[in-house]
């Protein structure tokens, strides 16, 4: 009986965590938390978080639309496209121009492409982010 007990222990309990399923890696999806899955031996999120650029792109689209209107105002206004383009179409272009010193640089590059440049900035998401962050 003692022999069988020791055999049982020897068979069922021996291999501890380094080799065991308590290790960091994964072999099965159920090794990972509910919101993760096993990929290449590591647990990764099932649904990767959306990139900020994507959000900026959505928001920048309408701002690009307004930028055409604002952009027609003056070049400084085009700087406002990225920032105040969304909220600032109300004509606070002068204020935006004041605060838009840094975006102004972006606007300058944007002015080269006119509306197209506005879109590219918007896709980059920087304009969108800074504008919303600023607002």
């Amino acid at each position, binding site marked *: 009986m003692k022999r069988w007990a020791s055999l049982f222990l020897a068979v069922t309990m021996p291999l501890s965590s380094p080799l065991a399923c308590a290790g960091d890696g994964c*072999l099965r999806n159920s090794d990972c938390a509910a919101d993760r899955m096993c990929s290449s031996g590591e647990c990764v999120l099932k649904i990767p978080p959306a990139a900020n650029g994507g959000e900026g792109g959505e928001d920048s689209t309408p701002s690009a639309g307004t930028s055409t209107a604002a952009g027609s105002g003056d070049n400084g206004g085009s700087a406002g496209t990225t920032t105040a383009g969304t909220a600032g179409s109300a004509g606070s272009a002068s204020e935006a121009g004041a605060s838009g010193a840094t975006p102004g640089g972006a606007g300058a590059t944007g002015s080269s492409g006119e509306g197209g440049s506005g879109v590219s900035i918007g896709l980059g998401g920087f304009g969108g982010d800074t504008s919303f962050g600023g607002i």
Partner: protein
Amino acid sequence: MKLWLAMACSVLGTVAMTRTARAEELLMDGNFGLGTGLEAGDPGTGLEWRRARLRVLGGIDLRSDEGPADALGFRAFVEIEKRASVGAEVRYERWMARNFGVWAGLTGTIAPETLFGGGFGCTAIIPFGKKVGLFIEPSFQALPLGSDTPGDGVLIWGLVSAGVRFGL
């Protein structure tokens, strides 16, 4: 007359000595134990081996008293390491001797992820008394289907289970 009397007596005697036909009985054995072993799979980086999750298992074996060598076994198990998973197994068992049998069957887990496959194994029983014994059961199983394997890999289990077996 004597002839008829003798015939009637013989018929009555035959009928009286005949045992009533017995209905087929279902024999049932219960099992409860623990199991672990080795587990292999390919998570995308090549075949990897590790210790299989410790599992608690229980089930029954059904046999007919007219053919006790053949049995149908049902098992349920819970893997109690990492995220606990619940599974089950159905198997055909062929008992080569009173205390030794081989089996093959289907197995799988149903939660939190699914996993399905099949395998085979054998069972040895160390009897303790008439109705109780210890069983030890090595098995090999391959599970290619289900959502628990990353990619299209096959999960392989080489397990050893042991526990108590008792007549019901």
